[in-house]
């Protein structure tokens, strides 16, 4: 298994006590597979995705990536894991505002020492970003920003891509186009995809689909 979550729980302390978001979630994702995660707003989809990406740690349970448990890693090792193993695409604020598109595209790959100029050049072509390389994030439209985020996530050829409503801020046509591109490029690299989405229409285009409700998967 590429990604293997076993009995993962997560809660947040809030003003009115502890909010139990995930109550023993288990999930497995093989290399090259794609999985859609749906659920109501506030059901904990993003929380689950962040745990899988090594951005946060669960209260209990195991998260194994290629057989290695990342739930117990320290800050430094978690950061190393993020640098090398996952590509992240969020709904917003994906990009580093002080870097231009060229530097944003290469940022994570160079951090993880996996930069490949030829591959990044190809990604740039495919994503239609060639004319935008010298621009800064604030000078891009929402769709353009998401395309850069996808390019950046793929530039280091990670084994796993985690996407949290990557097209949620875009209109339907643009969103579809962006998703098409992403799926095509993933097929090329053979990466696995875990994507959170509200839309059943988009979910249906992925290999599998899981629904999160009351802190459990079904």
């Amino acid at each position: 298994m590429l990604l293997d979550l076993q009995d993962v729980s997560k809660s947040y302390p809030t003003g009115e006590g502890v909010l139990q978001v995930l109550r023993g979630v288990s999930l497995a994702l093989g290399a090259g597979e794609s999985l859609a995660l749906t659920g109501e707003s506030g059901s904990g989809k993003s929380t689950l995705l962040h745990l899988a990406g090594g951005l946060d740690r669960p209260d209990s349970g195991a998260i194994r990536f290629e057989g290695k448990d990342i739930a117990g890693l320290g800050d430094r090792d978690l950061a190393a894991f993020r640098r090398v193993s996952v590509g992240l695409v969020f709904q917003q604020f994906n990009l580093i505002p002080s870097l231009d598109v060229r530097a944003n595209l290469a940022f994570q790959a160079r951090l993880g020492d996996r930069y490949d100029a030829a591959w990044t050049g190809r990604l740039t072509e495919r994503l239609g970003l060639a004319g935008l390389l010298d621009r800064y994030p604030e000078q891009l439209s929402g769709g353009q920003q998401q395309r850069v985020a996808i390019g950046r996530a793929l530039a280091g050829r990670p084994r796993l891509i985690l996407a949290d409503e990557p097209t949620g801020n875009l209109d339907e046509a643009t969103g579809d186009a962006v998703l098409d591109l992403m799926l095509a490029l993933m097929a090329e690299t053979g990466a696995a995809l875990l994507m959170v989405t509200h839309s059943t229409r988009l979910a249906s285009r992925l290999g599998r689909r899981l629904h999160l409700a009351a802190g459990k998967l079904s």
Partner: protein
Amino acid sequence: MLTQGFVVLLSHWRRHKLQFAMLLLGLALATALWSAVQAINGEARASYARAAAVVGQDRLEQLARPDGTRFPQSGYIALRKAGWLVSPVIEGEKRFGAERLRILGVDPLTLPSEAAQVNVGAADIGLQRFITPPGVFIVSAETAERLKGVETPPLRISDALPPGMVLTDIGIAQGLLDAPGQVSRLLVAAKQPGHARPLAEVTPDLVRRAPPEESDLSRLTGSFHLNLTAFGFLAFAVGLFIVHSAIGLAFEQRRPAIRTLRAVGLPLGVLIMLMVVELLVLSTAAGLIGVALGYGVASLLLPDVAASLRGLYGAEVPGTLSVRPSVWGLGLAIAVAGTLASAASRLWRIASMPLLAPARPRAWSLASERALRLQAAGGLLLLAMAGLTVFLGSGLVAGFASLGAMLLGAALLLPIMLSALLKLGERLSTRVVAQWFWADTRQQLPGLSLALMALLLALAANAGVGTMVQSFRQTFVGWLDQRLPSELYVTTRSLDESRKVHDWLSSRSDAVLPIWNADLRLFGQPVQVFGVADHATYRDHWTMLEAVPDVWDRIARGEGVLANEQLARRQKLKLGDAIPLQAGVSLPLAGVFSDYGNPRGQVMMGVDGLVRLFPDASRLRYAVRIAPDKAPQLAAELRKAFGLPQGNVVDQETVKAFSLRVFERTFAVTAALNVLTLGVAGLAIFASLLTLSGMRLSQLAPAWAMGLTLRRLALLEVLRGAALAVFTMLAAAPVGLGLAWMLLAVINVEAFGWRLPMHLFPFDWLRLLLLAVASAALAALLPALWLTRRSPADLVKVFANER
């Protein structure tokens, strides 16, 4: 509705206590430094005014010799007989124990009513006691305190006298000053009987002078106080940077609240008014704290200021402060005005903000590039103006205007220079984190540039003033060595003793050199004339700036005089110019010597000429040449032989140490203000970083998500502060040099009348650099620590929908 609006606005401060504290602190500090300077200046000026007003000298016309020397009492009697209502005054200095007092002798019976600030007929004094020996000394409470244990006539205290001055009967004073039958001047009563004979007939050698518009003291010390004021203003300006950034942050963060208030129907005008009221209340409160703080700072600094005023100018300023409404008023006014000025642009932006403007993150790259260029153009213009003012203008005010333009111009140029440097750093670095570091630092510039400008001002002022002080010190120390070559300096207590001491010393030392002097008015200013003997001591050591080839021969033959640099500069004297020493007597200028630390003009001539021209010159002091190892023995014997107090026979080292101490204390104030200004600049950076830390999270979160640890990011934040400080110091260095040059070559010449060579002290500059880096890194430390405490949940929120 009004209260509701106010409550919403004010609730912001409850949630942002630190920000509130920064705003108050910045404003209070700025006001404090400014007010401290004002309080000190006010105290000094009041003291000068008191000195000038004693016995009505600031209101009454006076009769005196054109050269200011004393004249026989017979002139006074002649005038009284001719029908003039005049009253005699004698003035002079005398030492009592360690205290040097200014003695003012008056005749209580003829003193005009305008001049009678002290009623000597009052019960506690009594006219009879006043005029019969030993007489009565009327002094200020502070002088009385200083005279404790010293043998003097009985003391009486009066507020009308400045410290260091004694009012007593003219007969008593004549005795004390060794000037029997002599008077310094005559006070002319405002109302004169009509039938008096013309003055020119009765006393042709006296001239009638209108009361001076400005006392000698306030003219002499004017530049010193202007210097302090300039520093106070600089500190205030630096403090305003804090206020500006704190207000900026508060207004930025309250945008949503403001939009909501408007949306629910609060008119824009009312809203703006509420905010102005809020600012007024805040700035008044901070101003009050600031002025109170300022008095604290002032009372700490005043002893040093008083000591340097006494050492430099012989000006007596009391060591305690009195509360002055003008200081409070001015302090509050400048606090309120400064706050409103800092807030003006924010208020304007709110006034012109569309109701539904989205709360978009600040656009920076394009807009700020243009703004930077515009600002830089303004900076260049100011620098050009500074240059023009230096070369075309003249006077102290022009000098300070030029300084101000240079500092402000350099500050305006700073952001574009930093931006260029950071761009260069980005281009030169090959590692991805380094590239991001430089790019990200550049992105912070708009938010930090005001604070960095404040830092630039503080650093430049520190470097410039430091260089000036150290250059002065180096020159001064070297000059003192030459100026004080004699082994012993002796002050006798009377003419008779003087003669005996001279004879006693002549057979026991290599040479006894008279240091005799007379006070006179030359070119309308008080000038001291010294008589010197013809001796190798002067030929070998005296530092001449320019002189005719056989200068000492001419002085010895009485064919020329020397003038000190400040007199020569003020009067634009050239070698060979005639110096009018007395009516009908003038001698050509044979040389100009440097005389650092002396505010007054000074003339030197052969001692024989001095005695001939000014028979009443003081002939009490001597310099003694003797083998250095025999000096202590001789000093002890001399003290014993004549019963001279310790302070009347001092060795070279003691005189030098005293001069240096005066020097150090003079600049202790400057150093204190320097450090305070730097501290305020450090606070400004801290305030700005605090401002930015809110926006910072969304900029740092992507880098964190891509695999940088929070610790590393925090470390980079601190490094960023340090790097910016280094760059700012790089920019401040030339400004500091320019400042030092202006101070040494323009301001000092205008203010003091001497020009000093510039020396550079690399070690001091290095220390300043370290100080700057440390303060910037320290300012960045707290926000960085907060960053490491962030939980992942906080960071991922940035990417979630909620924002």
